[in-house]
């Protein structure tokens, strides 16, 4: 019986195998990296808020401490978004006529809360705690970026699990002295401007007994 396929079909088959492998590989790479994209994770995307609150103005311009508004950040899982009352401590005196602040005044008058859009939104099956990170020397800036330079709030990092684990596996690369956690301009450099994170990090990890767990139940329950 004559051969069903000609010789040339061997080359075709080999090429197809290679092509399929490349195709599958590419597909997997694309799928895996989709979630890392800034586009899909909303990194550096400022969002419309009911009031265009500027961290840049309040932190760099006026010099407010993070904890003036985010009151529970050192003792609770949740850093706290301040009640309208907090805004009104100043804004009952200054910018009292500003149309931009009308939603604030209206909320205070009518007792109807303001609905802010969440920027740092972890999936509901992730249980994150601010207090423990601060007490172990993780600065606000480490996760939230240069908030002091953001006119409107955006996310500086993906908050993907991969990104969390990066620090949980090697905290020495990220920790800073506890007294500097709220410092937005702190850098791990010595007087000569050399980066000392490696030495400093290793020392702090020992000193603060930093031992972050990578067990599932640390964040998922």
């Amino acid at each position, binding site marked *: 019986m004559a051969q069903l396929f000609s010789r040339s079909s061997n080359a075709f088959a080999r090429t197809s195998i290679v092509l399929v492998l490349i195709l599958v590989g590419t597909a997997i790479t694309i799928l895996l990296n989709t979630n890392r994209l800034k586009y899909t994770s909303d990194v550096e995307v400022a969002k419309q808020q009911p009031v265009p609150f500027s961290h840049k103005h309040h932190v760099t311009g006026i010099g407010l401490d993070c904890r003036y508004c985010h009151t529970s950040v050192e003792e609770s899982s949740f850093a706290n978004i301040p009640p309208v*009352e907090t805004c009104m401590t100043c804004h009952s005196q200054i910018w009292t006529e500003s149309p931009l602040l009308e939603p604030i005044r209206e909320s205070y008058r009518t007792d109807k809360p303001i609905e*802010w*859009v969440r920027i740092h939104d972890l*999936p509901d099956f992730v249980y994150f705690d601010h207090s423990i990170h601060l007490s172990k020397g993780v600065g606000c800036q480490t996760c939230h970026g240069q908030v002091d330079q953001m006119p409107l709030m955006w996310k500086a990092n993906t908050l993907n699990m991969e990104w969390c684990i990066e620090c949980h596996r090697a905290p020495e690369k990220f920790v800073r002295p506890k007294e500097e956690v709220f410092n937005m301009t702190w850098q791990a450099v010595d007087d000569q401007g050399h980066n000392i994170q490696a030495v400093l990090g290793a020392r702090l990890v020992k000193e603060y007994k930093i031992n972050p767990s990578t*067990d599932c139940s640390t964040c998922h329950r």
Partner: protein
Amino acid sequence: MSSMTRTAHKDGLELAVIQERLSGKDGQDYWRSLNELADTEEFQEYVHREFPEGASELSDGLGRRKFIQLMGASLAFAGLTACTRQPKELIVPYVRAPELMVPGKPLYFASAISQGGFARGVLVESHMGRPTKIEGNPSHPSNPREGAKFGPTDIFTQATILDLYDPDRTQVPIWNAKPSTWTRFRGSLATEMAKLDLDQGAGLRLLTETVTSPTLAAQIQDLLKKYPKAMWHQYEPNGRDNVRAGAQMAFGEVVETQYDFGKAKRVLSLDSDFTAVGSASVRYAGQFAEGRRIEDGQKNEMNRLYVVESVPSNTGAVADHRLPLKGSQIDGVARAIAQALGINAGGGNTYGHDVWVNALVKDLKAHQGESLVIVGDHQSPSVHALAHAINHTLGNVGKTVKHTAAVEASPVDHQASLNGLVSDMSAGTVSLLVMVGGNPVYNTPSDIDFKNALKKVPTTIHLGQALNETSQLCNWHLPESHALEAWSDARAFDGTVSIVQPLIEPLYSAQSAHEVLAMMLGDGRQGYAIVKEYWQAQRGGATFDNDWQTWLHDGLIPNTALAAKSVRLKGNYGSPVSSLDGLEVAFRLDPTIGDGRYANNGWLQELPKPNTRLTWDNAALLSPATAEKLGVKDDDVIDVAVNGHSVALPVWRMPGLPADTVTVHLGYGRTVAGRVGNGVGVNAYALQTSNALWQAQEASVSKTGQTYKLACTQDHWYMEGRGLVRTGTLEDYTHHPHMIHEMGHVPGEDANFFNGIHTSEEGHAWGMTIDLNACNGCNACTVACQSENNIPVVGKEQVLNGREMHWIRIDRYFKGSLENPELYNQPVPCMQCENAPCEVVCPVGATTHSAEGLNDMAYNRCVGTRYCSNNCPYKVRRFNFLHYSDDHTESLKLGRNPNVTVRGRGVMEKCTYCTQRISAARITAKVGGQELKDGDITTACQGVCPTNAITFGDINDPNSNVSKLKKQNRNYGLITELNTRPRTTYLARLTNPNSEIAQHG
């Protein structure tokens, strides 16, 4: 029972075969159920399938085509979700933040929850203003626990939180079946009250349940002062009438009796389930268990409990000697005991148990002043009077027994009070009936026709949390605020007053009893003012405001317990009861849904009932021999008839029930309860008559030929033998301390195939012990776990499929004869194996081992292969087959624990030693620069346990409580021969039998 099916009955095995199998077992053999003993092919297949046939398939008649369409759609959506962005989420902060609240951290408020009128002290956990979990107040006398953060509670207190969020609660006042408003009610009430002014309120009747609240009592007195011809009636079907009548008979006055089980070395219970029922059950269960605690080298004495009972109870399960007798025979036995102690009672009859009774009497005589006799509420007044006499004769009064004035504001006979009201109503002399709570159309004996009497009253008003059989027939149904929504006060079993403070504004347009009374009095005050002003008048003074704050903080008003009262015996013990041959019906309130008031509470409906392990139904409980005699088996429907009334009930055979007794639980068969409770079970009040409330002789039974499937959980999660329950007598144990270890086999360290991966000595290593000597199977752990971990309710159909979701279950075992077996209860949570069989078979790494020894379960990672459950020898993993959690009902969302994921469909779930609590405690310690101390973490099951049976802690810390307990010779693990190295271990049960009662019984 309309849903009853007329299927042909499967032929189970006859009793003779079971008896034969039983006689083949040696003394140390335990059995879980009659099915296991019979060991039919069906049972074999049931066990080996793990889930019943068809449990993995859709059963609601969905066609194949429709199924494939749905699957196709959901697969497509499943694929798409990975590519969508997270939905927009809002943060809605306060406008003005409340004081003390730290967002993200729970607050605890002391309050009190009343059952049957009596307060239990509680600490309520509140997340951002939402009450989510109830713990006991450890400094409250009803549930004390020294040195602990939380005190114990019982199933009803735990489940109250679900009642608060019950979507079937009434939301606005209802006038003649139409929605109305409080303003209109006030107007209507004012007109009615004005009419009453003309004749001093002659037509006004107030019907309440038991009232211990001093404020409410004062308001009622004010009302009666203003309307001198008005009358106040009380009715609650809980059998306390006999307690009051017994005291009246014995002493000529109504007194409250308190017991101190901590000082009692010998206890006799005459049909009393004191460890699970009653206003002080949590306290008593704890004291009693403390008296049985054995510590090697420290304490090797324990109390001894004799129980004579007509229905196997939690207390009967922990007895050293249990004597099952018909309810009508207990009077004779009580008289025989009294006579033997020299009390002039007459009519004694031991019903052939002379040896038992004589040994008991001898033992009691040898422990004068350190024994006590307690009687079940539903036993006749004579038995109560006899017990009082016995306690007095034994010199127990002032030591283990204490009498005080009555705690109730007005200790009347409820049945008589109700009868009086009904005859006035029928006679047409009542023009306005105001009911504060209660459900007399449903929960009264069948010979009391409250429903027709109600029709003769021109204006009827009912205040209640939800529509029920009674409020449905009233002109006005007013929504009542829940105990967590309103100001009030209440007294505990010993008279201690607690202020009830609200945790949340009423969810709906609801008012409290105080506020409705105030409307009737025309003073219009709100609850806070009413309660506070009452106490200001009582205890006013310069420091009142400070005192008030202290009372609220502590959850009780100090020195309000009633003082001991001296009483004198009258020597009156009524006339002896003649126990007739033939069938007898024993009525009891249902152990999980009470008199029916918890019928719409899914947690309590699905909670397996103690000893029978039935869910979602009541049944006619029969002893196996009686069932055989009547020719009926489990699930057969019989007509039970007594005193001219009859109801059809499915049969359930209960080993350990006395012969010729049909036990029937009240509280089922509600028709207006809500979406959970409507049409569940059979209304047994229809069988009850007011002349024979709790036991009715001369009953008869006839077969109907129908069957009805009961949902019993006992054969689910079957572990197939292997020394699971280990017991011994105290004497044997003292002489031979290693007897418990010798009952099983633990492989050595070198047997470890995986090279000792999970036995780190660094850091914490969490472990748990469960003391079977303390556990009485009260189920509180199961409900507490359900509340803490957002565990869904699945419904009867799903329970029949073996899909109940409880993370901690109570296994029940029998040992010995069918007539009088020993009963054992064993709580089984996840064992957190060091060599966990579940972990190695998970294809996606969703269940992994944590460094501290937990079997972590990452729900978001689980794809639902169920391999882990299949490989788990302890059967403690629960698979969410359908989407059991209710995502749609807004009110239910409020009650969930925000620190635990609400699991979806297709996910395996399990106990992780309350890992959210471990995490919270660890973070608090670290942030504060401290090390975690023993006792910083309390698991939900541990905290709630009335008997302190559960101990949790760090087994790497040699000084922790759990480490010390694990060193006890009573410590053993389940199925350790598989080298699973479980972190949860058990302390064997010891009994302290009287050697003179030769055959244990």
